[in-house]
């Protein structure tokens, strides 16, 4: 028995260090990190966990599918995707988030749960359960060789895109006055308002930035999963939400690291679990989530402080 377990573990580790598996895992981690930033930005300002974030990505996916079915150039498709997602984000902020401001995180989470199902069922009526095909960028799925190692192009593209997007975001947060306002609002919203931070502007900017990130994620995800269905990105969102809470909700950096870590781990599990166990990927992943939450309820990547009962 022990020998079996040991040899299983050796096989797992052997597969886990394969460059292709590592590259895919890092690529997935990068995509999940972008989603984590999108969720974390909105949480920082509004104290609201946006469960409907995945449905923004889904809407972007359908926009890409619309463009690709009509043979639009790739750039036009991406522009449509960005437009749809940003408009939808702003509408969500205005109609749902703003009236909910100041309520308990739990009831806001339930409200965004409702919005998620609303958007998903609208998509179901509109596009049907089989979904549409967004195939304009699939050639990025092809492998390319770096030195002697073969990795899929999308892994590299994901990593580079995520790095650039995060760098731009950091510049915005640290070098502009609206960025300063957002950081102030994330630290202490009531006090920030007292010293002249405009609440509506800050929350609109946070939501638009999160929407832009959702549009980027939609583009990256449709490369790997070109069939866009009403449940597109739903599982990914659940996993990233877990990752964000595991990493630490209260700061953007731990939340991002949490998103990256859970993407990386699920990429490794997906690539290295033996085939007869790979169907239990989400069991392994969420067991890990529970264990980490129990050990570090305030967040894996946060320092000091302790959990405060907010709900």
């Amino acid at each position, binding site marked *: 028995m022990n020998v079996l377990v040991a040899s299983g573990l050796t096989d797992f580790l052997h597969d886990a260090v394969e460059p292709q598996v590592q590259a895919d895992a890092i690529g997935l981690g990068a995509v999940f990190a972008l989603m984590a930033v999108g969720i974390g930005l909105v949480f920082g300002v509004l104290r609201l966990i946006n469960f409907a974030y995945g449905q923004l990505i889904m809407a972007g996916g359908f926009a890409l599918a619309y463009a690709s079915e009509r043979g639009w150039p790739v750039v036009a498709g991406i522009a449509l995707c960005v437009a749809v997602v940003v408009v939808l984000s702003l509408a969500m902020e205005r109609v749902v988030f703003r009236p909910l401001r100041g309520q308990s995180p739990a009831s806001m989470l339930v409200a965004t749960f409702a919005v998620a199902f609303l958007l998903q069922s609208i998509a179901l009526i509109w596009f049907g359960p089989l979904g549409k095909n967004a195939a304009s960028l699939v050639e990025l799925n092809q492998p390319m060789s770096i030195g002697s190692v073969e990795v899929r192009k999308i892994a590299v593209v994901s990593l580079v895109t995520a790095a650039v997007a995060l760098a731009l975001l950091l510049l915005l947060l640290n070098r502009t006055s609206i960025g300063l306002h957002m950081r102030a609002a994330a630290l202490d919203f009531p006090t920030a308002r007292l010293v002249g931070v405009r609440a509506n502007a800050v929350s609109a900017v946070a939501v638009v930035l999160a929407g832009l990130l959702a549009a980027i994620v939609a583009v990256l995800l449709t490369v790997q999963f070109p069939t866009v269905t009403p449940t597109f990105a739903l599982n990914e969102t659940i996993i990233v939400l877990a990752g964000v809470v595991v990493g630490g909700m209260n700061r953007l950096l731990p939340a991002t690291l949490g998103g990256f870590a859970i993407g990386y781990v699920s990429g490794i599990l997906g690539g290295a679990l033996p085939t007869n166990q790979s169907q239990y990927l989400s069991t392994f992943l969420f067991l890990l989530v529970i264990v980490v939450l129990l050990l570090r*309820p305030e967040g894996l990547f946060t320092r000091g402080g302790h959990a405060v009962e907010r709900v």
Partner: protein
Amino acid sequence: MTLPRSLVQLAGPVTLVVAAALVGATVSRSTEIYFINALVMVSIVVALYVFVGNSGVLSFGHISFVAVGAWAAGVLSVPEAEKPAFMPYLFGFLRDTTVGNVPSLVLAGVAGGVFALLVGLPLMRLSGLAAGIATFAVLEITHNVLRYYEKVGPGLNTFSSVPETTDLQQAALGALVVVAVAFAYQRSRFGRQLRAAREDPAAARAVGVSIYRQRLAAFALSGFLAGLAGGLYVHFLPLQIDGVYLDLTFITLAMLVIGGATSLWGAVVGALAVSALDSVLANAETGIEVLGRSFDVPAGTRLVVVSALMALVLIVRPSGLTGGKELTFDSLRRLRARAPSAPKEATE
């Protein structure tokens, strides 16, 4: 509080359940289905309420206890001869055991309760968002395991040939049992301690309430009730694993929130109101005639309406239709006082 007064709080939910059952008994067989479904939903939502309502901690994981209960009752009550047809890989003792209707329901409750207790032992130490995400993780794990582990159930297959013993009478009795247990619990000292901790954790701790223990007890009890409800569910319709996953989690949470999460009355009102709306819309999806004109709404409209309604309730009336309060003599009297001409001064 005198006993008769507190009994009004029980009488409200009980009357609603009995009324639903009586109306259900007068309609055609095809419409009766909707009433049975509504009563099963009452059981699930009240089970959810026992934990969420009394503790104030959100749980996305209760449908896993419903699923475990459904699996236990389903696997154990399919006739032995028919098990290999859709559950060929069962453990020996599950393959060779078949129990009757009532024992299967009790076992469903026990399975749900034991599972909830085991899960709660570590998880009830968490609070807030960490607790919410951890219960979500439980749902994901349970769904994943039941979906692929074919030694304990049908996996991806549908639970066919489970005796359909949940008729209108059994669904109503089940809902009444769940409501009565929930009522007894919230009137007990354990329930009161937990509700005190919900209102003010620091003050409750100061007077010696162990929040962890009270939450754990409520979690296990509501797991038991959810398991029982799952047993009722699997005896009502041929269930499949995706029937006890995100959609059911969402719809039952919506029912609880729309009704008013902090009262038993709210849980029952929410479950019945949303079920009624859902049934009307389900009928409308297959075409409905109103005043001689036929309407036909596209399939999927139900979820659109229910989720929009849920978001609306959370924005406009965050404490739900009932305001999260129990039904009392006073509220009845106030309602009557308001009814004739509704003068604003008369209602305080």
